[in-house]
């Protein structure tokens, strides 16, 4: 067993630098690497490019880096929950590359799996396809999208072990597995670190080979964006 365990978030992010490109898992505030984000704020890393489906909310998630003006460029599919984001974008302070959600996921997976680019129908005929190669297959048009390149991927899992194996819970899985192994270094934070051998090999969602560092996360807030409930009769 190759040991990927590091002591804490400080050790995991010790070599993170300004101007790097990061991938961050999560959908909205669900499944985001809260510890890594806090550490990026603390380290005050600047001018970074973030690949993440959303940009958090004003006072949580990637919104914290936005408030702090640490982000130079965001690559996301949806940023509707963040006023500061919209302000920085419309004013031109923040560079934004909006990417269809399925394309975003597959650009991660392509990087993970060694595909240089792929053809997808998403965005054909829209401004997303402007300047990109398009091509017909079987009478349908597709856009060529290159794989992402990133320095670090920060992902959050439910359970993990020292071998780097990860298991996700519910919809907090989302982009996290697709980002593992898609950057030069993948850092996983987990809610619960379990003994090696405790995870069922049949139900490991991400094998440790895709993860370079893993640590036991702490103080998870796991904020809910839209608390929708019904009342018991």
């Amino acid at each position: 067993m190759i040991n990927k365990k590091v002591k804490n978030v400080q050790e995991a992010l010790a070599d993170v630098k300004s101007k790097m490109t990061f991938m961050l898992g999560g959908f909205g505030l669900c499944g985001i690497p809260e510890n890594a984000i806090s550490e990026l704020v603390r380290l005050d890393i600047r001018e970074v490019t973030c690949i993440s489906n959303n940009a958090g909310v004003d006072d949580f998630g990637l919104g914290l880096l936005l408030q702090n003006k640490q982000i130079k460029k965001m690559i996301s599919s949806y940023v509707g929950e963040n006023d500061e984001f919209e302000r920085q974008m419309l004013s031109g302070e923040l560079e934004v590359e909006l990417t269809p959600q399925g394309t975003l996921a597959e650009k991660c997976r392509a990087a993970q799996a060694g595909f240089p680019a792929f053809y997808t129908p998403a965005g054909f005929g829209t401004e997303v396809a402007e300047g990109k190669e398009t091509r017909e297959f079987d009478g349908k048009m597709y856009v060529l999208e290159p794989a992402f390149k990133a320095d670090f991927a920060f992902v959050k899992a439910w359970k993990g072990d020292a071998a780097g194996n990860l298991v996700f819970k519910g919809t907090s899985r989302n982009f996290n597995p697709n980002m593992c192994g898609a950057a030069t270094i993948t850092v996983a934070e987990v809610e619960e670190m379990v003994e090696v051998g405790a995870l069922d090999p049949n139900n490991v969602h991400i094998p440790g080979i895709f993860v370079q560092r893993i640590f036991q996360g702490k103080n998870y807030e796991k904020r809910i964006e839209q608390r929708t409930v019904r009342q018991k009769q």
Partner: protein
Amino acid sequence: MALDKIGIAKRIAQEVQDGFYVNLGIGIPTLVANYVREDIEVEFQSENGVLGMGAFPFDGEEDADIINAGKQTITTMPGASFFDSSMSFAMIRGKHVDLTILGAMEVSENGDIANWKIPGKMVKGMGGAMDLVASAENIIVAMMHTNKHGESKILKKCSLPLTGVGCVTKVVTNLAVLEVKDNAFYLLERAPGVSVEAIQNATEGTLIINGEIPEMAI
């Protein structure tokens, strides 16, 4: 009388057939789930990674790790599954989802749809909508027929940046049910009490009216 949002959702719910996997967009489409006939089997997919969505959780039972694409807390039905984003869009791109219902700011007579951006003013992003409309073969749009200034959103040509081209198959508005084909909107049904003339006046795109147009039965 023009439909309200719930009316639109109820009418669209009639389009959902037994055995359908359905993806519901944010807004009115989300409401559709509440009005699907109870004697048919349907499964709802949400592109953030769940198949087999159920109702909202009971107060106190919500789980931050179990949400839909609108970031709302949800529950799951027996037989549900969770998966990653790549597999979620494999379902969508691979045409395994039978019906896509989403909102729009504009629709044009050739089936184009615009719903993600107002240049210089509003940029929320396309989320999964571009993937959905580029692949789905059965796309129903839920929208108001006109904007708050009374201007038609059912157009010859969209003025806003497109989400997808030539993809919309049906539109259900507060005024009408329209089928999109052969570069025109075919008027299928009127909202209760709404005249054909009122629909014609609210429609900028080519409207085809064949024979007597029935009222919706909701």
